[in-house]
């Protein structure tokens, strides 16, 4: 099962719409409650990151019997130092993002904690790709 969603940078009113629709699908598929929660939290943080930092983005979700793969590709400023960006507390968020309740430098680490594997690649000035994989049955990790 595959889905593709476009996201507009700066559109805070819609941030979370993709995570919300994925949550409904996972619930319909009877995916374990704890696994669903991890996936949608990681996805929601990723979605907020695109809205907060990029000009536009695409989220691709691929669900099979054993795992859920999420690929978030954005066009934006990119991340010059990924290691630094992963540090809890490091943030380049604008005051507007902070007013939304984010921008404390916790997003990427929340995404990592809530997925079984996370890969980030980025070209400064072009954009960032984040790939998340989470196994549906926790013992399959």
């Amino acid at each position, binding site marked *: 099962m595959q889905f593709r969603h476009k996201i507009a940078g700066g559109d*805070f*009113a819609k*941030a*979370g719409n993709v995570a919300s629709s994925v949550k409904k699908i996972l619930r319909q598929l009877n995916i374990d409650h704890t696994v669903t*929660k991890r996936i949608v*939290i990681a996805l929601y943080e990723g979605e907020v990151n695109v809205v907060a930092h990029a000009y536009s983005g695409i989220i691709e979700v691929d669900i099979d019997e054993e795992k859920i793969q999420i690929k978030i590709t954005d066009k934006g400023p990119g991340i010059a130092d990924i290691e630094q960006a992963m540090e809890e507390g490091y943030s380049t968020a604008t005051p507007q993002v902070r007013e*939304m309740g984010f921008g404390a430098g*916790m*997003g990427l680490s929340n995404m990592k904690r809530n997925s079984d594997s996370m890969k980030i690649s980025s070209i400064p000035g072009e954009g960032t790709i984040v790939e998340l994989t989470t196994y549906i049955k926790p013992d399959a990790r």
Partner: protein
Amino acid sequence: MTVKEITGIIDGRVICCEERNSTSVEYAFASDLMSDVLTLEKENMVLITGLANLQAIRTAEMSDISCIIFARDKKIGEEIISLAKENNMILIESPHSLFYISGELYKAGIKSIY
């Protein structure tokens, strides 16, 4: 403790999904930082916040939080209420501060998460 009892303790007014006010709550977390809320693993909890925007509702949706208390009489817009309704979420407005609400609920036996 039920949501109805909590509403009484904090002089609250339920503005969404009052029919669910017999829902029981064991824990509370007070924060305006949604990323912090998204780290919580507990359920059966109420979120106390001063952040009156759509992201508070979305965060509660992702975290399976079914009740939010908005402190200090924040103006809760129609868009927020309608998203909460979609998610069967109880919204409570209280005139009191985050500190007062937290203190009263703690005193009444609601547990802290950390």
